[in-house]
Protein backbone atom coordinates (compact mmCIF):
# COMPACT_ATOMS: atom_id res chain seq x y z
CA UNK A 1 0.00 0.00 0.00
CA UNK A 2 2.73 2.42 0.94
CA UNK A 3 5.04 1.44 -1.92
CA UNK A 4 6.55 4.45 -3.66
CA UNK A 5 5.48 4.77 -7.31
CA UNK A 6 9.13 4.70 -8.50
CA UNK A 7 9.77 1.31 -6.89
CA UNK A 8 6.77 -0.40 -8.43
CA UNK A 9 8.12 -1.43 -11.87
CA UNK A 10 11.26 -2.85 -10.31
CA UNK A 11 9.30 -4.90 -7.81
CA UNK A 12 6.95 -6.28 -10.47
CA UNK A 13 9.85 -7.18 -12.74
CA UNK A 14 11.52 -9.20 -10.01
CA UNK A 15 8.22 -10.78 -9.18
CA UNK A 16 7.69 -11.73 -12.83
CA UNK A 17 11.16 -13.27 -12.85
CA UNK A 18 10.43 -15.31 -9.74
CA UNK A 19 7.16 -16.42 -11.34
CA UNK A 20 9.09 -17.58 -14.38
CA UNK A 21 11.53 -19.57 -12.26
CA UNK A 22 8.71 -21.13 -10.35
CA UNK A 23 6.96 -22.07 -13.60
CA UNK A 24 10.16 -23.68 -14.91
CA UNK A 25 10.68 -25.61 -11.68
CA UNK A 26 7.04 -26.70 -11.69
CA UNK A 27 7.29 -28.10 -15.20
CA UNK A 28 10.67 -29.70 -14.54
CA UNK A 29 8.89 -31.79 -11.89
CA UNK A 30 5.52 -32.30 -13.54
CA UNK A 31 6.43 -33.11 -17.15
CA UNK A 32 8.69 -36.11 -16.38
CA UNK A 33 6.31 -37.33 -13.70
CA UNK A 34 3.32 -37.11 -16.05
CA UNK A 35 5.22 -38.99 -18.75
CA UNK A 36 6.19 -41.67 -16.23
CA UNK A 37 2.55 -41.99 -15.18
CA UNK A 38 1.40 -42.29 -18.79
CA UNK A 39 4.03 -44.90 -19.63
CA UNK A 40 2.20 -48.06 -18.42
CA UNK A 41 -0.91 -47.11 -20.38
CA UNK A 42 1.13 -46.21 -23.45
CA UNK A 43 3.00 -49.52 -23.26
CA UNK A 44 -0.28 -51.37 -22.90
CA UNK A 45 -1.46 -49.89 -26.21
CA UNK A 46 1.91 -50.42 -27.92
CA UNK A 47 2.31 -54.03 -26.77
CA UNK A 48 -1.24 -54.80 -27.85
CA UNK A 49 -0.10 -54.12 -31.41
CA UNK A 50 2.99 -56.35 -31.29
CA UNK A 51 3.84 -60.02 -31.59
CA UNK A 52 5.65 -61.43 -28.56
CA UNK A 53 9.00 -61.42 -30.39
CA UNK A 54 8.57 -57.65 -30.63
CA UNK A 55 7.65 -57.22 -26.95
CA UNK A 56 10.63 -59.26 -25.78
CA UNK A 57 13.14 -58.06 -28.37
CA UNK A 58 16.42 -56.79 -26.87
CA UNK A 59 15.77 -53.22 -28.00
CA UNK A 60 13.33 -50.74 -26.46
CA UNK A 61 10.32 -50.25 -28.68
CA UNK A 62 7.96 -47.38 -27.95
CA UNK A 63 5.97 -47.18 -31.16
CA UNK A 64 2.88 -49.16 -32.12
CA UNK A 65 2.97 -51.79 -34.85
CA UNK A 66 0.18 -53.33 -36.91
CA UNK A 67 -0.64 -56.59 -35.15
CA UNK A 68 -3.57 -55.45 -33.02
CA UNK A 69 -6.26 -57.38 -34.91
CA UNK A 70 -4.13 -60.57 -34.91
CA UNK A 71 -3.76 -60.24 -31.15
CA UNK A 72 -7.50 -59.70 -30.72
CA UNK A 73 -8.16 -62.79 -32.84
CA UNK A 74 -5.74 -64.84 -30.72
CA UNK A 75 -7.50 -63.59 -27.60
CA UNK A 76 -10.91 -64.48 -29.02
CA UNK A 77 -9.69 -67.96 -29.91
CA UNK A 78 -8.35 -68.46 -26.39
CA UNK A 79 -11.33 -67.35 -24.26
CA UNK A 80 -14.24 -66.29 -26.46
CA UNK A 81 -13.47 -62.78 -25.27
CA UNK A 82 -16.23 -61.15 -27.30
CA UNK A 83 -18.89 -63.06 -25.38
CA UNK A 84 -17.40 -62.08 -22.02
CA UNK A 85 -17.17 -58.48 -23.21
CA UNK A 86 -20.88 -58.47 -24.04
CA UNK A 87 -21.56 -60.07 -20.64
CA UNK A 88 -19.65 -57.25 -18.97
CA UNK A 89 -21.62 -54.61 -20.86
CA UNK A 90 -24.96 -56.21 -19.96
CA UNK A 91 -24.06 -56.74 -16.31
CA UNK A 92 -22.75 -53.18 -15.94
CA UNK A 93 -25.81 -51.65 -17.65
CA UNK A 94 -28.41 -53.56 -15.64
CA UNK A 95 -26.42 -53.17 -12.42
CA UNK A 96 -26.12 -49.42 -12.93
CA UNK A 97 -29.80 -48.95 -13.73
CA UNK A 98 -30.97 -51.01 -10.76
CA UNK A 99 -28.48 -49.55 -8.33
CA UNK A 100 -29.30 -45.96 -9.32
CA UNK A 101 -33.01 -46.70 -8.88
CA UNK A 102 -32.58 -48.38 -5.47
CA UNK A 103 -30.21 -45.80 -4.05
CA UNK A 104 -32.17 -42.79 -5.28
CA UNK A 105 -35.40 -44.23 -3.82
CA UNK A 106 -33.64 -44.74 -0.50
CA UNK A 107 -32.05 -41.29 -0.64
CA UNK A 108 -35.45 -39.76 -1.38
CA UNK A 109 -37.06 -41.48 1.59
CA UNK A 110 -34.32 -40.17 3.87
CA UNK A 111 -34.86 -36.59 2.71
CA UNK A 112 -38.64 -36.39 2.31
CA UNK A 113 -40.11 -38.37 5.19
CA UNK A 114 -39.82 -38.42 8.89
CA UNK A 115 -40.31 -42.02 9.90
CA UNK A 116 -39.66 -44.48 12.65
CA UNK A 117 -36.10 -45.83 12.51
CA UNK A 118 -34.71 -43.10 10.27
CA UNK A 119 -31.69 -42.48 12.47
CA UNK A 120 -30.89 -46.18 12.53
CA UNK A 121 -31.14 -46.52 8.75
CA UNK A 122 -28.81 -43.55 8.29
CA UNK A 123 -26.35 -44.91 10.86
CA UNK A 124 -26.27 -48.27 9.09
CA UNK A 125 -25.59 -46.64 5.75
CA UNK A 126 -22.77 -44.53 7.15
CA UNK A 127 -21.39 -47.48 9.09
CA UNK A 128 -21.12 -49.80 6.10
CA UNK A 129 -19.26 -47.09 4.17
CA UNK A 130 -16.12 -48.04 6.06
CA UNK A 131 -16.80 -51.76 6.44
CA UNK A 132 -14.43 -53.90 4.38
CA UNK A 133 -16.26 -55.91 1.73
CA UNK A 134 -14.16 -58.93 2.67
CA UNK A 135 -16.25 -59.48 5.80
CA UNK A 136 -19.27 -60.41 3.72
CA UNK A 137 -17.72 -62.06 0.68
CA UNK A 138 -17.46 -65.57 2.16
CA UNK A 139 -20.98 -65.91 3.54
CA UNK A 140 -22.30 -64.06 0.48
CA UNK A 141 -20.65 -66.74 -1.63
CA UNK A 142 -22.00 -69.55 0.55
CA UNK A 143 -25.50 -68.06 0.31
CA UNK A 144 -25.49 -67.48 -3.44
CA UNK A 145 -23.40 -70.38 -4.68
CA UNK A 146 -24.08 -73.16 -2.19
CA UNK A 147 -27.44 -72.51 -0.53
CA UNK A 148 -29.21 -70.96 -3.52
CA UNK A 149 -27.20 -72.77 -6.20
CA UNK A 150 -27.01 -69.67 -8.36
CA UNK A 151 -23.46 -69.79 -9.73
CA UNK A 152 -23.23 -68.76 -13.38
CA UNK A 153 -26.50 -66.81 -13.37
CA UNK A 154 -27.22 -63.18 -14.18
CA UNK A 155 -28.80 -62.86 -10.74
CA UNK A 156 -25.56 -63.80 -9.00
CA UNK A 157 -23.53 -61.39 -11.11
CA UNK A 158 -25.86 -58.42 -10.71
CA UNK A 159 -27.92 -58.54 -7.51
CA UNK A 160 -25.58 -59.23 -4.55
CA UNK A 161 -23.25 -56.28 -5.34
CA UNK A 162 -26.24 -53.89 -5.62
CA UNK A 163 -25.99 -52.58 -2.08
CA UNK A 164 -23.86 -49.46 -1.85
CA UNK A 165 -24.00 -46.64 0.64
CA UNK A 166 -22.25 -44.06 -1.51
CA UNK A 167 -25.20 -43.80 -3.90
CA UNK A 168 -27.70 -43.21 -1.12
CA UNK A 169 -25.60 -40.47 0.46
CA UNK A 170 -25.00 -38.86 -2.91
CA UNK A 171 -28.69 -38.87 -3.88
CA UNK A 172 -29.76 -37.79 -0.42
CA UNK A 173 -27.52 -34.75 -0.68
CA UNK A 174 -28.86 -33.92 -4.12
CA UNK A 175 -32.52 -34.17 -3.07
CA UNK A 176 -31.98 -32.17 0.11
CA UNK A 177 -30.62 -29.25 -1.90
CA UNK A 178 -33.84 -28.95 -3.94
CA UNK A 179 -36.57 -26.48 -2.90
CA UNK A 180 -38.83 -28.64 -0.72
CA UNK A 181 -41.81 -26.29 -1.27
CA UNK A 182 -42.01 -27.59 -4.81
CA UNK A 183 -42.68 -31.12 -3.58
CA UNK A 184 -45.12 -29.84 -0.95
CA UNK A 185 -47.03 -27.94 -3.64
CA UNK A 186 -47.23 -31.07 -5.80
CA UNK A 187 -48.53 -33.01 -2.81
CA UNK A 188 -51.20 -30.36 -2.13
CA UNK A 189 -52.33 -30.66 -5.73
CA UNK A 190 -52.87 -34.35 -5.20
CA UNK A 191 -49.88 -35.75 -7.07
CA UNK A 192 -49.04 -39.21 -5.77
CA UNK A 193 -45.82 -39.62 -3.76
CA UNK A 194 -44.32 -41.99 -6.32
CA UNK A 195 -45.01 -39.49 -9.11
CA UNK A 196 -43.54 -36.60 -7.14
CA UNK A 197 -40.41 -38.73 -6.99
CA UNK A 198 -40.30 -39.84 -10.63
CA UNK A 199 -41.75 -36.77 -12.39
CA UNK A 200 -40.48 -33.91 -10.22
CA UNK A 201 -37.49 -34.93 -8.14
CA UNK A 202 -35.61 -37.34 -10.41
CA UNK A 203 -35.55 -35.00 -13.44
CA UNK A 204 -34.11 -32.28 -11.22
CA UNK A 205 -31.40 -34.66 -10.03
CA UNK A 206 -30.08 -35.39 -13.53
CA UNK A 207 -26.51 -34.12 -12.94
CA UNK A 208 -26.17 -36.26 -9.82
CA UNK A 209 -27.75 -39.24 -11.55
CA UNK A 210 -25.20 -38.86 -14.37
CA UNK A 211 -22.24 -38.74 -11.99
CA UNK A 212 -23.53 -41.65 -9.93
CA UNK A 213 -24.25 -43.74 -13.03
CA UNK A 214 -20.71 -43.27 -14.32
CA UNK A 215 -19.15 -44.29 -11.01
CA UNK A 216 -21.41 -47.34 -10.62
CA UNK A 217 -20.88 -48.42 -14.22
CA UNK A 218 -17.13 -48.15 -13.78
CA UNK A 219 -17.26 -50.12 -10.52
CA UNK A 220 -19.26 -52.90 -12.13
CA UNK A 221 -17.15 -52.91 -15.28
CA UNK A 222 -13.94 -53.37 -13.31
CA UNK A 223 -15.34 -55.63 -10.59
CA UNK A 224 -13.12 -58.68 -10.34
CA UNK A 225 -13.39 -60.67 -7.11
CA UNK A 226 -17.14 -61.32 -7.00
CA UNK A 227 -17.59 -62.36 -10.67
CA UNK A 228 -14.42 -64.45 -10.28
CA UNK A 229 -16.23 -66.40 -7.56
CA UNK A 230 -19.68 -66.80 -9.11
CA UNK A 231 -18.87 -67.02 -12.84
CA UNK A 232 -17.00 -70.27 -13.26
CA UNK A 233 -18.14 -71.26 -16.74
CA UNK A 234 -16.64 -69.34 -19.62
CA UNK A 235 -19.99 -68.36 -21.16
CA UNK A 236 -20.99 -66.47 -17.98
CA UNK A 237 -17.64 -64.85 -17.24
CA UNK A 238 -17.19 -61.11 -17.35
CA UNK A 239 -14.29 -59.75 -19.37
CA UNK A 240 -11.97 -59.04 -16.39
CA UNK A 241 -12.44 -62.61 -15.12
CA UNK A 242 -11.71 -64.06 -18.56
CA UNK A 243 -8.65 -61.87 -18.99
CA UNK A 244 -7.41 -62.61 -15.48
CA UNK A 245 -7.60 -66.34 -16.15
CA UNK A 246 -5.07 -65.92 -18.99
CA UNK A 247 -2.42 -64.09 -16.97
CA UNK A 248 0.41 -66.45 -16.18
CA UNK A 249 -0.48 -69.04 -18.81
CA UNK A 250 2.57 -69.59 -20.99
CA UNK A 251 0.59 -70.70 -24.03
CA UNK A 252 -1.15 -67.32 -24.26
CA UNK A 253 0.80 -64.53 -25.92
CA UNK A 254 1.30 -61.31 -24.00
CA UNK A 255 0.23 -59.38 -27.09
CA UNK A 256 -3.19 -61.03 -26.87
CA UNK A 257 -3.47 -60.26 -23.14
CA UNK A 258 -2.53 -56.63 -23.78
CA UNK A 259 -5.15 -56.47 -26.54
CA UNK A 260 -7.70 -57.62 -23.96
CA UNK A 261 -6.46 -55.01 -21.49
CA UNK A 262 -6.86 -52.34 -24.16
CA UNK A 263 -10.41 -53.48 -24.99
CA UNK A 264 -11.27 -53.32 -21.28
CA UNK A 265 -9.61 -49.97 -20.67
CA UNK A 266 -10.21 -47.91 -23.82
CA UNK A 267 -14.01 -47.48 -23.36
CA UNK A 268 -13.49 -46.25 -19.81
CA UNK A 269 -10.75 -43.85 -20.90
CA UNK A 270 -13.21 -42.38 -23.44
CA UNK A 271 -15.81 -42.04 -20.70
CA UNK A 272 -13.22 -40.30 -18.57
CA UNK A 273 -12.17 -37.89 -21.32
CA UNK A 274 -15.64 -36.96 -22.54
CA UNK A 275 -17.58 -37.05 -19.30
CA UNK A 276 -14.80 -35.81 -17.05
CA UNK A 277 -16.91 -33.33 -15.13
CA UNK A 278 -19.47 -35.96 -14.05
CA UNK A 279 -16.72 -38.40 -13.36
CA UNK A 280 -14.88 -36.03 -11.03
CA UNK A 281 -17.99 -35.10 -9.10
CA UNK A 282 -18.76 -38.80 -8.70
CA UNK A 283 -15.30 -39.47 -7.23
CA UNK A 284 -15.41 -36.55 -4.85
CA UNK A 285 -18.96 -37.35 -3.72
CA UNK A 286 -17.56 -39.68 -1.10
CA UNK A 287 -15.50 -36.91 0.44
CA UNK A 288 -18.50 -34.63 0.88
CA UNK A 289 -19.48 -34.44 4.49
Amino acid at each position, binding site marked *: MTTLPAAAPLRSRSRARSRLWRAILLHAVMVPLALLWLL*PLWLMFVFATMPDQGIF*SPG*INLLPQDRFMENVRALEAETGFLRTFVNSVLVALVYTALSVLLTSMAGWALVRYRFWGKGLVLAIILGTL*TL*PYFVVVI*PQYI*LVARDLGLTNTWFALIVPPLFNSLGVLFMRQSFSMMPQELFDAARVEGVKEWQIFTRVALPMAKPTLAALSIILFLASWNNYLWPLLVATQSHMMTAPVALGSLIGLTRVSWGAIMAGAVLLTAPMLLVFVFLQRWFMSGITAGAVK
Partner: protein
Amino acid sequence: MRRRNITAYGFLAPYLLIFAAFWVWPIIYSFWLSFLFTRRQPWTFNPNTTWGRLVEDPAFWNALKNTLVILVVQVPIMIALATVLAVLLNSTLLRARGLMRFAFFAPVVVGEVAYAAVFRLIFSEDLGFVNKALAAIGLPEVAWFSSPTAAMALIIMAVTWRWAGYNAIIILSGLQSIPDDVYEAATLDRVSPVRQFFFITLPLLKPVILFCVVLSVIGTMQLFAEPFLITNEGGPGSATETLGLFLYLQGFRVLNFGYASAVAYTIAALAVLISLLNMWAGRERA
Protein backbone atom coordinates in the same frame (compact mmCIF):
# COMPACT_ATOMS: atom_id res chain seq x y z
CA MET B 1 -47.63 -40.45 10.76
CA ARG B 2 -48.43 -44.06 10.07
CA ARG B 3 -48.95 -43.32 6.38
CA ARG B 4 -45.60 -41.60 6.30
CA ASN B 5 -43.98 -44.68 7.76
CA ILE B 6 -45.50 -46.86 5.09
CA THR B 7 -44.55 -44.54 2.24
CA ALA B 8 -41.01 -44.09 3.53
CA TYR B 9 -40.44 -47.80 3.93
CA GLY B 10 -42.01 -48.34 0.53
CA PHE B 11 -39.20 -46.30 -0.97
CA LEU B 12 -36.60 -47.92 1.25
CA ALA B 13 -37.82 -51.50 0.89
CA PRO B 14 -35.87 -52.71 -2.17
CA TYR B 15 -32.66 -51.21 -0.86
CA LEU B 16 -33.08 -52.56 2.65
CA LEU B 17 -34.07 -55.96 1.28
CA ILE B 18 -30.81 -56.26 -0.65
CA PHE B 19 -28.98 -55.00 2.40
CA ALA B 20 -30.60 -57.55 4.69
CA ALA B 21 -30.08 -60.49 2.35
CA PHE B 22 -26.55 -59.78 1.14
CA TRP B 23 -24.99 -57.82 3.99
CA VAL B 24 -26.74 -58.25 7.36
CA TRP B 25 -27.26 -61.97 7.03
CA PRO B 26 -23.71 -62.62 5.74
CA ILE B 27 -22.16 -60.53 8.53
CA ILE B 28 -24.02 -62.49 11.20
CA TYR B 29 -23.53 -65.82 9.49
CA SER B 30 -19.83 -65.10 8.99
CA PHE B 31 -19.43 -64.52 12.72
CA TRP B 32 -21.04 -67.88 13.45
CA LEU B 33 -18.94 -69.53 10.74
CA SER B 34 -15.77 -68.24 12.32
CA PHE B 35 -16.31 -70.71 15.17
CA LEU B 36 -16.97 -73.74 12.97
CA PHE B 37 -14.68 -76.45 11.71
CA THR B 38 -15.63 -76.50 8.02
CA ARG B 39 -13.11 -78.86 6.48
CA ARG B 40 -15.42 -81.84 6.91
CA GLN B 41 -19.19 -82.30 6.64
CA PRO B 42 -21.16 -81.80 8.85
CA TRP B 43 -19.64 -78.53 10.12
CA THR B 44 -18.99 -78.67 13.86
CA PHE B 45 -18.42 -76.07 16.54
CA ASN B 46 -14.68 -75.96 17.08
CA PRO B 47 -13.08 -72.51 17.51
CA ASN B 48 -9.68 -74.15 18.00
CA THR B 49 -9.55 -74.75 14.26
CA THR B 50 -10.35 -71.12 13.45
CA TRP B 51 -9.54 -68.48 16.07
CA GLY B 52 -7.23 -70.88 17.86
CA ARG B 53 -5.39 -71.66 14.65
CA LEU B 54 -5.21 -67.99 13.68
CA VAL B 55 -2.92 -66.97 16.54
CA GLU B 56 -0.36 -69.65 15.79
CA ASP B 57 -0.56 -69.88 12.00
CA PRO B 58 2.76 -68.58 10.57
CA ALA B 59 1.07 -68.08 7.17
CA PHE B 60 -1.44 -65.69 8.77
CA TRP B 61 1.29 -63.73 10.59
CA ASN B 62 3.28 -63.55 7.37
CA ALA B 63 0.25 -62.16 5.51
CA LEU B 64 -0.40 -59.70 8.34
CA LYS B 65 3.24 -58.59 8.32
CA ASN B 66 3.22 -58.09 4.54
CA THR B 67 -0.01 -56.11 4.71
CA LEU B 68 1.33 -53.87 7.47
CA VAL B 69 4.57 -53.29 5.55
CA ILE B 70 2.53 -52.15 2.53
CA LEU B 71 0.35 -50.05 4.82
CA VAL B 72 3.29 -48.32 6.51
CA VAL B 73 5.33 -47.77 3.34
CA GLN B 74 2.81 -47.37 0.54
CA VAL B 75 0.03 -45.31 2.13
CA PRO B 76 2.25 -42.42 3.35
CA ILE B 77 4.16 -42.30 0.05
CA MET B 78 0.96 -42.26 -1.96
CA ILE B 79 -0.84 -39.69 0.19
CA ALA B 80 2.19 -37.38 0.18
CA LEU B 81 2.49 -37.75 -3.57
CA ALA B 82 -1.23 -37.17 -4.07
CA THR B 83 -1.12 -34.03 -1.93
CA VAL B 84 1.85 -32.60 -3.84
CA LEU B 85 0.22 -33.56 -7.14
CA ALA B 86 -3.04 -31.86 -6.18
CA VAL B 87 -1.24 -28.65 -5.18
CA LEU B 88 0.87 -28.61 -8.35
CA LEU B 89 -2.08 -29.46 -10.61
CA ASN B 90 -3.95 -26.58 -9.00
CA SER B 91 -1.17 -24.09 -9.78
CA THR B 92 -2.12 -21.30 -12.19
CA LEU B 93 1.41 -21.50 -13.64
CA LEU B 94 0.84 -25.01 -15.02
CA ARG B 95 0.51 -25.40 -18.80
CA ALA B 96 -1.23 -28.28 -20.63
CA ARG B 97 -3.30 -28.81 -17.51
CA GLY B 98 -5.85 -31.05 -19.24
CA LEU B 99 -3.14 -33.42 -20.41
CA MET B 100 -1.48 -33.40 -16.97
CA ARG B 101 -4.76 -34.26 -15.31
CA PHE B 102 -5.31 -37.05 -17.79
CA ALA B 103 -1.87 -38.51 -17.05
CA PHE B 104 -2.49 -38.80 -13.32
CA PHE B 105 -6.24 -39.42 -13.25
CA ALA B 106 -6.50 -41.95 -16.09
CA PRO B 107 -5.27 -44.89 -13.93
CA VAL B 108 -8.42 -44.41 -11.82
CA VAL B 109 -10.55 -45.91 -14.61
CA VAL B 110 -8.18 -48.79 -15.36
CA GLY B 111 -9.40 -52.09 -13.95
CA GLU B 112 -7.34 -54.23 -11.59
CA VAL B 113 -6.91 -57.04 -14.10
CA ALA B 114 -5.83 -54.79 -16.97
CA TYR B 115 -3.25 -52.90 -14.96
CA ALA B 116 -2.02 -56.00 -13.17
CA ALA B 117 -1.38 -57.58 -16.58
CA VAL B 118 0.54 -54.52 -17.76
CA PHE B 119 2.71 -54.36 -14.64
CA ARG B 120 3.42 -58.06 -14.74
CA LEU B 121 4.51 -57.74 -18.37
CA ILE B 122 6.64 -54.59 -18.21
CA PHE B 123 8.46 -55.76 -15.07
CA SER B 124 9.31 -59.16 -16.59
CA GLU B 125 12.76 -60.19 -15.45
CA ASP B 126 14.00 -61.34 -18.85
CA LEU B 127 13.79 -58.65 -21.50
CA GLY B 128 10.96 -56.85 -19.75
CA PHE B 129 10.59 -53.16 -20.51
CA VAL B 130 11.69 -51.86 -17.10
CA ASN B 131 14.82 -54.01 -16.92
CA LYS B 132 15.74 -53.05 -20.49
CA ALA B 133 15.28 -49.37 -19.57
CA LEU B 134 17.40 -49.80 -16.41
CA ALA B 135 20.14 -51.47 -18.43
CA ALA B 136 19.98 -48.70 -21.04
CA ILE B 137 20.84 -46.05 -18.44
CA GLY B 138 23.55 -48.21 -16.92
CA LEU B 139 21.70 -49.49 -13.88
CA PRO B 140 21.63 -53.16 -12.83
CA GLU B 141 18.58 -55.21 -13.75
CA VAL B 142 16.26 -56.12 -10.89
CA ALA B 143 14.82 -59.56 -10.13
CA TRP B 144 11.31 -58.17 -9.73
CA PHE B 145 9.60 -61.52 -9.22
CA SER B 146 12.26 -63.65 -7.55
CA SER B 147 13.55 -61.21 -4.94
CA PRO B 148 11.11 -60.78 -2.03
CA THR B 149 12.07 -57.12 -1.50
CA ALA B 150 11.82 -56.25 -5.19
CA ALA B 151 8.47 -58.02 -5.49
CA MET B 152 7.15 -56.03 -2.54
CA ALA B 153 8.48 -52.82 -4.11
CA LEU B 154 6.71 -53.78 -7.33
CA ILE B 155 3.35 -54.21 -5.55
CA ILE B 156 3.86 -50.87 -3.81
CA MET B 157 4.69 -49.11 -7.09
CA ALA B 158 1.71 -50.66 -8.85
CA VAL B 159 -0.78 -49.67 -6.15
CA THR B 160 0.70 -46.17 -5.98
CA TRP B 161 0.38 -45.77 -9.75
CA ARG B 162 -3.23 -46.90 -9.66
CA TRP B 163 -4.44 -44.86 -6.67
CA ALA B 164 -2.34 -41.67 -6.36
CA GLY B 165 -4.51 -39.87 -8.92
CA TYR B 166 -7.71 -40.97 -7.21
CA ASN B 167 -6.54 -39.43 -3.95
CA ALA B 168 -5.26 -36.36 -5.79
CA ILE B 169 -8.77 -35.79 -7.21
CA ILE B 170 -10.25 -35.83 -3.70
CA ILE B 171 -7.51 -33.58 -2.29
CA LEU B 172 -7.84 -31.24 -5.27
CA SER B 173 -11.53 -30.77 -4.51
CA GLY B 174 -10.53 -29.94 -0.93
CA LEU B 175 -7.97 -27.42 -2.20
CA GLN B 176 -10.52 -25.69 -4.36
CA SER B 177 -12.71 -25.07 -1.36
CA ILE B 178 -9.97 -23.01 0.33
CA PRO B 179 -10.78 -19.33 -0.35
CA ASP B 180 -8.24 -17.50 -2.52
CA ASP B 181 -8.00 -14.48 -0.25
CA VAL B 182 -6.18 -16.55 2.37
CA TYR B 183 -3.32 -16.96 -0.08
CA GLU B 184 -3.57 -13.38 -1.30
CA ALA B 185 -3.16 -12.13 2.25
CA ALA B 186 -0.22 -14.47 2.81
CA THR B 187 1.44 -13.34 -0.42
CA LEU B 188 1.03 -9.70 0.58
CA ASP B 189 2.72 -10.58 3.87
CA ARG B 190 5.53 -12.11 1.77
CA VAL B 191 5.01 -15.63 3.03
CA SER B 192 6.92 -17.90 0.64
CA PRO B 193 4.96 -20.50 -1.38
CA VAL B 194 6.67 -23.33 0.51
CA ARG B 195 5.70 -21.86 3.87
CA GLN B 196 2.18 -21.22 2.54
CA PHE B 197 1.96 -24.91 1.72
CA PHE B 198 3.03 -26.05 5.18
CA PHE B 199 1.25 -23.42 7.28
CA ILE B 200 -1.94 -22.76 5.29
CA THR B 201 -2.65 -25.51 2.77
CA LEU B 202 -1.77 -28.58 4.81
CA PRO B 203 -3.66 -27.63 7.98
CA LEU B 204 -6.76 -26.71 5.97
CA LEU B 205 -6.54 -29.94 3.98
CA LYS B 206 -6.23 -32.13 7.05
CA PRO B 207 -9.81 -33.46 7.09
CA VAL B 208 -9.65 -34.39 3.40
CA ILE B 209 -6.24 -36.03 3.75
CA LEU B 210 -7.47 -37.96 6.77
CA PHE B 211 -10.41 -39.18 4.69
CA CYS B 212 -7.98 -40.38 2.01
CA VAL B 213 -5.84 -42.14 4.63
CA VAL B 214 -8.85 -43.98 6.03
CA LEU B 215 -9.97 -45.04 2.54
CA SER B 216 -6.44 -46.23 1.75
CA VAL B 217 -6.18 -48.20 4.98
CA ILE B 218 -9.43 -50.01 4.23
CA GLY B 219 -8.26 -50.63 0.67
CA THR B 220 -4.87 -51.95 1.74
CA MET B 221 -6.38 -54.30 4.30
CA GLN B 222 -8.26 -55.91 1.40
CA LEU B 223 -5.45 -55.82 -1.16
CA PHE B 224 -6.01 -58.90 -3.27
CA ALA B 225 -5.87 -58.59 -7.06
CA GLU B 226 -2.35 -57.13 -7.21
CA PRO B 227 -0.49 -59.91 -5.36
CA PHE B 228 -2.87 -62.47 -6.90
CA LEU B 229 -2.20 -61.43 -10.50
CA ILE B 230 1.05 -59.43 -10.60
CA THR B 231 3.28 -61.50 -8.32
CA ASN B 232 1.55 -64.78 -9.15
CA GLU B 233 -0.42 -65.49 -5.95
CA GLY B 234 1.84 -63.67 -3.53
CA GLY B 235 5.20 -64.84 -4.79
CA PRO B 236 8.06 -65.39 -4.56
CA GLY B 237 7.05 -68.03 -2.05
CA SER B 238 4.61 -66.05 0.03
CA ALA B 239 6.69 -62.87 0.19
CA THR B 240 3.86 -60.68 -1.14
CA GLU B 241 0.92 -62.64 0.24
CA THR B 242 -1.46 -60.11 1.79
CA LEU B 243 -4.35 -60.65 4.21
CA GLY B 244 -6.79 -60.26 1.32
CA LEU B 245 -5.02 -62.92 -0.72
CA PHE B 246 -4.64 -65.18 2.32
CA LEU B 247 -8.39 -64.96 2.88
CA TYR B 248 -9.10 -65.73 -0.77
CA LEU B 249 -6.81 -68.77 -0.78
CA GLN B 250 -8.20 -70.10 2.52
CA GLY B 251 -11.81 -69.41 1.57
CA PHE B 252 -12.00 -70.24 -2.09
CA ARG B 253 -9.02 -72.44 -2.86
CA VAL B 254 -8.98 -74.64 0.26
CA LEU B 255 -12.71 -73.95 0.85
CA ASN B 256 -12.07 -73.57 4.57
CA PHE B 257 -14.92 -71.13 5.16
CA GLY B 258 -14.71 -71.18 8.95
CA TYR B 259 -11.06 -70.24 9.13
CA ALA B 260 -11.44 -67.67 6.33
CA SER B 261 -14.32 -66.06 8.26
CA ALA B 262 -12.06 -65.62 11.28
CA VAL B 263 -9.52 -63.98 8.96
CA ALA B 264 -12.27 -61.75 7.52
CA TYR B 265 -13.27 -60.55 10.98
CA THR B 266 -9.64 -59.89 11.83
CA ILE B 267 -9.28 -57.79 8.66
CA ALA B 268 -12.40 -55.78 9.53
CA ALA B 269 -11.31 -55.26 13.13
CA LEU B 270 -7.85 -54.11 12.08
CA ALA B 271 -9.27 -51.77 9.43
CA VAL B 272 -11.62 -50.16 11.95
CA LEU B 273 -8.88 -49.99 14.60
CA ILE B 274 -6.30 -48.36 12.32
CA SER B 275 -8.89 -45.95 10.92
CA LEU B 276 -9.93 -44.89 14.42
CA LEU B 277 -6.27 -44.51 15.39
CA ASN B 278 -5.74 -42.25 12.39
CA MET B 279 -8.75 -40.12 13.22
CA TRP B 280 -7.66 -39.88 16.82
CA ALA B 281 -4.12 -38.87 15.83
CA GLY B 282 -5.53 -36.35 13.36
CA ARG B 283 -7.70 -34.77 16.03
CA GLU B 284 -4.91 -34.55 18.62
CA ARG B 285 -2.80 -32.29 16.47
CA ALA B 286 -5.65 -29.88 15.66
